[in-house]
């Protein structure tokens, strides 16, 4: 008896799950463009609503904060509300135009625990288009000790809702996240003289599907 290829097994399994749980299999509705071409292309149009997106800022000055500023501009243009759960209180209001702050709810946390509690509340709120959870700058040990159940809880809370959840991390952290982008190219001082739009356009963003491939291989046996 011929053994089906792993990709065929996974495909069959997905079809079976889609037939059995149509609610779960439904594609997220809409998305929030980040106004950064590389990010939007990698995500197929923008941050998917009802899903978590992990943005790994693997190198210093790799552009995580610039993407956040672009998101502020994009949500302001769409007249949507955005929440920033700032795990290490690092957001600098003075570095973005004042007009881009009026629709922002900024939560200045002192510890990752506070950030997770706040994010859990905000994701369920229903009034936000985007909830950005910025965990950069938090103690690595504390982040690595985050139980996986907490991430699954956050994912379940986002599912079915209209909020796009962006998690910014210093290293890959979110288990089984549907979309993970990696910023690993540091900027140079020359970028300081470029227009911010150009800086954002030059960001080195790559989609990381290694964790999904690994999961598929595990499923395929």
């Amino acid at each position, binding site marked *: 008896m011929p053994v089906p290829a792993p990709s065929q097994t996974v495909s069959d399994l997905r079809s079976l799950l889609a037939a059995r749980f149509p609610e779960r299999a439904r594609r997220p509705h809409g998305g929030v463009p980040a106004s950064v071409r590389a990010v939007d292309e990698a995500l197929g149009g923008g941050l998917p609503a009802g899903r978590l997106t992990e943005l790994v800022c693997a190198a210093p000055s790799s552009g995580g*904060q610039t993407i956040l500023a672009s998101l502020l501009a994009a949500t302001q243009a769409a007249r*949507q509300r955005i929440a920033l759960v700032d795990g290490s209180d690092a957001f*600098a209001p003075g570095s973005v135009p004042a007009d881009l702050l*009026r629709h922002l709810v900024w939560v200045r946390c002192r510890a990752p625990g506070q950030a997770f509690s*706040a994010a859990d509340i905000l994701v369920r709120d229903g009034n936000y288009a985007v909830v950005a959870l910025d965990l950069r700058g938090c103690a690595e040990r504390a982040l690595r000790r985050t139980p996986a159940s907490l991430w699954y809880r956050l994912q379940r809370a986002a599912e079915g809702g209209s909020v796009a959840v962006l998690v910014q991390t210093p290293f890959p952290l979110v288990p089984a996240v549907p979309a993970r982008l990696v910023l690993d190219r540091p900027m140079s*001082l020359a970028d300081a003289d470029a227009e911010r739009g150009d800086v954002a356009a030059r960001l080195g963003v790559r989609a990381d599907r290694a964790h999904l491939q690994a999961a598929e291989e595990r499923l395929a046996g």
Partner: protein
Amino acid sequence: MNYAVLVVPDFALHALRRSDPSLRGRPVALVAGEGRRARVTQASPEARGVAPGLAATLAMSRCPGIVLRPPDPASEVEAGRLLVAAGFTLSPRVEATAPGCCTVDLRGADPARTEALMRLRAAEIACAGLPLRAGAGATPLLASYAARLADPVLVVSDARGFLAPLPLAFAEPTAVQEGILAGWGIATLGGLTALPKAEVGRRLGADGALLWERAAGEATRVLRHVEPARSFAAEWAYEPPVESTEPLFFKLRRYAERIALELRGAGFVADRLSLTLLLEDESDHRREFRLPEPGADVDGWLRVLGSHLEGVRTQARVAGVRLVASPARPPERQEGLFDTGLRDPASFWENIARIAAIVGDDRVGTPACADTHRPDAFTMGRPAESVAPALRAPVHPEYGPTLRRFRPPWPVRVAFDGGSPARLEGGRLEGGVRAATGPWLAAGDWWRPEAWAAETWQVELAAGGVYQLARTAGGWCVEGMLD
């Protein structure tokens, strides 16, 4: 409908059960007297076979597992305040007539609206643990008769028709009067009022005329109004002290229900809550909560308080609690036609308050840059209800990556070479500098005690990363990373 009477049957028993969660669903009876003379005064429906007047020992044998308790004056006072607070939500003229009974002067109020309010209040007070009965009528006496028969609200518009079938006992005749009237074949109020009042007075005397008036529901009186609450606070003690949040939440809810009702009765809402835990070692833990959306919703308050209490660790057990609500006028707003408002305003403000309870009042909100060039100067304001349209594009576009601040800044030693930073040492950030731009010199507030001055550089490290350095009065530091 000139008057309303709010009554809680078996008030002392319900007040006790309301204050003690361990009595919920169990057979309970209140007893008066001691030893063999102890008698049941009030019994809960679960105490089958037990009725007022029964000896305590007999009650225990008839209903195994019954909890016998003496009356608890403190819980009765609190329940009484809740009842009066409910009265003040109907009218500003309220009389605390008796324990578990208050009379409200409704003259001038809209009857339809008042009846709806009474029903609403009866449901709320029932949820708060007191089965409220409310009656309304032309006189206080008629309202009290209605309250005794209400389930939970009864408004009497046709007094004669309502009174006619009621038993004579409603008018509280003396034993002598009852005997005489029984001899006349009169057993109902309608039967008595069918007789001419003057003739009844001639045969039964002045007391007989008063009885006739009571039977007709005509007896009126001047109410002794009570003062509305001036402070919106509660304080209670735990004996023995508690070390878990469950008993805290139970009592918090009970007292918050009363405070919220008192606020609403006075036309206020709360904009701040102050919670003080009085600890066993005579220290205390105090925390003030600014409610982003002022309100008198107990569930919302408790979610805010709960978010905080779940993370509180105290050195000693909690011996008492003080809860104070700061009154404020209810917010009034009118949204613009094209504003994109909140989908769920209640949830939005409640969640802001819950997060404030976790991170602190001053650490959640919408930032706004302060009117100064001082670095990192901003204020946290109340989030806007609606997202306004974007202003026109700025004349000068933003340049460079966005700054990501280190709070507090990282101290560092900077080695210079040829007038510009060449190496960072001795801090969380070390390494050679590949390129640097600067300095930018800024100073301000020199006319104030908090004058400031800074020399700022941007440096790119050889190991990667662009950082912003600043030299201030405190020395060199890394202000943040350009990201």
